[in-house]
């Protein structure tokens, strides 16, 4: 009865705090919307092509200018416009760079839409600057007289060299470099009319090739919506401490377990609602789960429960709601960055249990949730396929919950 009362009270209080409720429920769906707006489902990679020795437009413009023709090249804006030109003129079409741009621009994603947005650039230095600013994912440098060199490549010892330049720390570079490598090989084959003796084909696991960039972000956002519960749960618990109401409950002999579980269950309900809303928003914007959605929601709910223990640990050390907010940032970042929710991280192996390698980050609940969600949403896995991950999250939920209750009792409810 006590547990139910605490649960009901906690739900009432959450419901009557519209801003807090809106933040808890709406943050992840809002971020899904933002990601969709920014990436729109299919975002082509920006690729620059620089051809060495190609006559510069600057020379033409200077000649026109000296002949008394009006020119805008003196202004910096005009020069910027030149540098970022994306069109290919008829003259350029016959050049190697122009042909390469045409080829790259014709590449399509499996679900349609351009794979790359390629353009010719005139200055190497400026192209590199754009790479540094991450305004482009990669730069292909075509050497002087490339097509002629290809024609006589067998006769000469020195092979023409195509370079794919980029910022190796840019996550887009790794993806685009692979695609560019294949595209350049095709370009050379077509230019030299020499078919490859073998065929190299890409093959996607399940329908992973069908995923858009936007869809790739959705599991991470789902994990974020769940991990964000640390804030609301820790602050809800600490509110009782700060307002002194915990003292009242202490006098009633209400146990730390009943109090914390009651609050935790109400937060899990909110977390599950948040997951549902996030999926709903994603679905409206074109997200398609390859596996059963209810399994993904179950993973979200179980992860919410497991996060509660962390919130309790935070609440054990916080005296005020502000302190709880500040302290919650630490586990939030830990759980987001080291669980692989944002980007995959290398495993730090600790040992083998039951034939499975256990790593350091396996003690973070979202690690398993990320794997489970990935399996379900991308590879179409069923509940049976994610039993281990769900089980691991539940075990960690029990572990963290136990530690949280013990710490909270020790620090806040024990009679000293």
């Amino acid at each position: 009865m006590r547990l139910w009362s605490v649960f009901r009270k906690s739900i009432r209080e959450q419901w009557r705090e519209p801003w807090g409720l809106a933040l808890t429920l709406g943050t992840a769906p809002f971020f899904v919307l933002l990601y969709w707006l920014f990436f729109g489902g299919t975002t082509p990679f920006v690729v620059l092509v620089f051809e060495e020795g190609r006559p510069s437009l600057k020379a033409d413009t200077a000649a026109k200018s000296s002949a008394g023709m009006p020119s805008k090249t003196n202004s910096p804006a005009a020069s910027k416009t030149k540098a970022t030109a994306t069109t290919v003129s008829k003259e350029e079409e016959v050049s190697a760079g122009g042909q390469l741009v045409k080829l790259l621009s014709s590449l399509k994603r499996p679900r349609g839409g351009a794979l790359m947005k390629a353009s010719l650039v005139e200055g190497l230095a400026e192209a590199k600057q754009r790479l540094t600013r991450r305004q482009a994912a990669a730069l292909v440098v075509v050497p002087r007289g490339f097509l002629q060199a290809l024609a006589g490549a067998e006769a000469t010892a020195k092979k023409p060299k195509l370079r794919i330049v980029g910022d190796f720390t840019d996550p887009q570079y790794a993806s685009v470099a692979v695609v560019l490598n294949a595209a350049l090989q095709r370009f050379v084959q077509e230019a030299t009319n020499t078919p490859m003796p073998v065929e190299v084909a890409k093959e996607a696991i399940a329908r992973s090739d069908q995923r858009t960039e936007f869809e790739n972000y959705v599991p991470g956002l789902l994990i974020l919506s769940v991990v964000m519960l640390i804030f609301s749960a820790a602050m809800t618990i600490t509110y009782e401490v700060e307002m002194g109401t915990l003292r009242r409950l202490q006098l009633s002999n209400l146990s730390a377990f009943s109090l914390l579980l009651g609050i935790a269950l109400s937060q899990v309900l909110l977390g599950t609602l948040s997951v549902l809303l996030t999926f709903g928003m994603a679905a409206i914007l074109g997200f398609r789960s390859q596996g059963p959605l209810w399994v993904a929601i179950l993973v979200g709910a179980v992860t919410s429960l497991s996060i509660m223990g962390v919130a309790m640990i935070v609440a054990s050390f916080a005296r005020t709601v502000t302190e709880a907010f500040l302290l919650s940032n630490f586990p939030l970042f830990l759980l987001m960055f080291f669980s692989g929710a944002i980007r995959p991280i290398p495993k730090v192996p600790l040992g083998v249990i039951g034939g499975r390698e256990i790593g350091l980050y396996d003690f973070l609940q979202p690690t398993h949730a990320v794997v489970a969600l990935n399996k379900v949403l991308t590879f179409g896995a069923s509940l049976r396929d994610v039993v281990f991950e769900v089980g691991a999250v539940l075990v960690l939920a029990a572990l963290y919950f136990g530690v949280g209750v013990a710490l909270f009792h020790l620090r806040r409810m024990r009679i000293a």
Partner: protein
Amino acid sequence: MFDAKDSGNQEAQRSARYTNGSSHRAKTNEHPPFAKEYSPSFVYKAEEADTTARKKASVSLASAVDRAVSETWEGAGQASMAPMPVLDFASGRAYAQREEPVVAVELRGVTKRYGSLVAVDQLDLAIPIGEIFGMLGPNGAGKTTTIQMLCGLLKPDEGEIWVQGSCLSSSPDARRHIGVCPQQLVLWEKMTPLEQLVFLASAYDIPEKIAHPRALSMLKALGLWEKRDTLAKYLSGGMKRRLNLLMALIHEPSILVLDEPEAGLDPQSRVLVREYVRAWVREGQRTVILTSHNMDEVERLADRVAVMDRGQLLSLDTPEQLKRQHQQGDLLEIEIADAAQPHLEEALFVLHQIASDVRWEGTIVSMRMDSLVEHLSLVLGVFRRFKIAIQAVRTRPSTLEDAFISLTGRALRDE
């Protein structure tokens, strides 16, 4: 009420003779036998103590318990002729093991330290059922620590605390007997008064079907019926205070701890709360422990008052007795027409011979003296003799605050 027939012990049988004993006592003008028996135990404790103050406290404690129990007994005899309660204070623990104790709270040699600071020092205290007990003391006196210990929120480093016959350290459930109304508002701002009361009752395992009507009736009694469905954050300060009090009572405790109960209340609410508390005590076997800095409030409500300072009990008695024991006389204030009187200093010298604490500030000359009525003409004669014109004369009888200041001094205290 304790049933003597069920007890089977000697004291019970002996006291049963006094079931109708009010007339008997009136004739003999004696205390009932149990009163004689428990007094020595407190005297014995007093002998163990080092300070004179504690001796005084223990002796006055004994007399107060004696009086309170006698009144309980007398009332019971007159009203329902119920069997006498039995007290065995001689053996210290005996009454605590009985099924129906007559002492609500007892502290035995209770000490609490925070590092090197001794917040409460070997405190002995017994508060009988049915008493409104006041605790006074400057900041840092140890009141709050004492209250927290007897509520079971702090563990004493030494000593024992017994609540309604159960030792708190071995029976933490005894905390259920206590309801605490803290000075600060301890409410759930986003819940209505009705929801809060029902929720808190559920924390005490009181089913909703019982808690709900009880909460409604309590809200009605303290004028909160109209606001029963309004969120607490929208209630006025006075309403919140009243709700704060009800929160302490929803589980029907037998001991109510009130910390500054009238702080922040308007005069109407003060009267309402005071009457409600008095009525609550009268309703049954209930006890109130009251801490306050407001001496008037304590004087008006409390049957007995304990004055604490530096963790020790300095004095314990009825407000009247305290005033009598520690009075410095009634206060007389004389307002003179002009501070630049040529013979004022001579007059003050003479006044020092007949009054104490003579002070002169601007046009006000104040002094304290016993039997003000007798000496007033003498004082006025001094002013007449030195040709000092009087504008006004004001008198104020000795108050509990005077006794308090006398016991604890005028020096400011840190928290």
